[in-house]
């Protein structure tokens, strides 16, 4: 990623573009999933759970974005995010089934 100017290959450009999309979409998606899940799952009063979950999601998003850019390859970053999203999504599905 250190190179710049005409020496950048198409592959590198695609990798950067992919990371941008993954950091933005994946970062927001995981933050949103965690906000939705924790709002139901945190052992607090309902408004407290929602407030705490929403607050923490804003810390999670930049962290995810940075992780995406720090990972060795785009594939690995995508797989990591997909794994996290799967766990959160599964938890949310269970929590929503349990909710009245």
């Amino acid at each position, binding site marked *: *990623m250190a190179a710049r100017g005409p020496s950048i290959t198409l592959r590198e450009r695609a990798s950067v573009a992919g990371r941008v999309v993954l950091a933005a979409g994946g970062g927001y998606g995981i933050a949103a999933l965690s906000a*939705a899940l924790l709002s*139901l799952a945190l052992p607090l009063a309902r408004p407290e759970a929602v407030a705490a979950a929403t*607050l923490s999601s804003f810390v999670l998003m930049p962290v995810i974005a940075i992780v995406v850019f720090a990972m060795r390859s785009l594939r690995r970053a995508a797989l990591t995010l997909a794994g996290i999203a799967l766990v959160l999504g599964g938890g949310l599905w269970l929590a929503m089934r349990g909710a009245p």
Partner: protein
Amino acid sequence: MKGRFRPSMAWLHTWSGLVVGWVLFGIFVTGTASYYRADITHWMRPELVQAAPVAATDLPKAAERAFAYLETHASTAKTWFIGMPRPDRPLLDLFWRTRPGTPPGHVLLDPATGAEAMVRDTEGGDFLYRFHYELHMPPLWGRWIVGACAMIMLVALITGIVTHKRIFSDFFTFRRDKAARRSFLDAHNVTGVLALPFHLMITYTGIVALATFYMPWGVTTAYKGDTRAFFAEAGWITAPRPPVGRPAPLAPVGPMIAQALASVPERLERLTVTNFGDAGATIVAMFEEPHGLAHTPTHIAFDGTSGALLEIRGGDLKPAARTISTLIGLHVAHFADTGLRLLFFLCGVMGSAMVATGLVLWSLARLPKVEAEAALGLRLVQALNIGSIIGLPAAVAVYFLANRLLPVGLADRGEWEIRAFFAAWIVAALIPLARPHRRAWSEMSMLVCGLCLAVVAADIATIEAHPLRRLGEGEALFLWFDGAMLALAALFAFAARKVARHRGPSRVEPRREPVLAAPAERVRA
């Protein structure tokens, strides 16, 4: 991993900072000005500066006059908002929405008579305040753009910290005499690091201020999307009451206001009336927040038809809700008195400078080594840099100037001030395209300096009660405002001089390596 982490963070810092830098500069500058929003509005309505403040005992009668006006002029509106007289605006500020799509109604009334106030039409500091989070766009668009920029700013801040191995010694490093790029880098580091706690706080709390707008999914799952139910259950607002569907007249509002004033020591700030004309009408009195970090204003709800007190909310918040209130309180800094407010303001100025130096640094680091034609991307960045860093201050100065120079009776005067703002911005962004880049910086800086001086001159020339024309008598606000404009003029004159006197073109400065990000280079140098 270890060898790659820091360069990739430096890369992320450089590029994330660049893509949002121009918008971020606007958000920072208008947000910084918003610390003095009330003072700016006050200055822009000079007719009111001498007006006597309204006594608390006159507020119930004033509220009844506001209701009388709204019952004749806004009886079809769903919701009324009545801003009660304040020390800096001793008028009733009426606002109502009829239905989506039609422009909202807005009028200022004299609290003593109930007649429309004779005051020049202006958005005042509210325009800068709303630009800060909506960019004068449709709210949905503006808020999402600002939120995305804030999130990317958060990423740029964190990666900027990671990039600095020697964050403590950078704190004391300013190599003024070295090449331009070095001193810009140091200026970027100093303004970034010195006020770093402020930058992190203001960015995160700014996102939190619109938390359920950006991240509604917790409310979606736990409250089926009913944000007001969440707010009410958390204790921020009184419980929303739906319309009953049966018409009923309002009870006299004066006694309700008197009762509210008797139970809360803070200043009454605003009344909100919902479901006017319906048996479910509700009147909510909102008070200024009690002194402290948290933004926890007291709300008192009254039944509109019977006048009975329904509930009192605010203050008694649980930890997470109180955390949100405190974060928002930190962002808006209503708790700050004169000295602390000035500190917040200066931190905001440093944030603006951090963004500006970062943007300039990007373009300086990419100047061609020889007298070659600059690449298209570089030219674009240069044009946008000068267009925002010079264009926005020029636009703000013209906004103030328009307030003093436009005829007082002009129709849509407030709108014309905003048009002047954007016209000036466009012109100030276009002129540099026709000039050599370095010359453009110094010329445009001098232009901003001249515009700031013109604001002071116009202020003295048009305001008869100006202290300088009355041998020191009169409102000190004018002196403070003009002093701030003079300081800005000096700042831009200094910048113009620096750019003009800077000798060697920095483009021949030797570079040891292809720059991927300047801070990373520093670390290895």
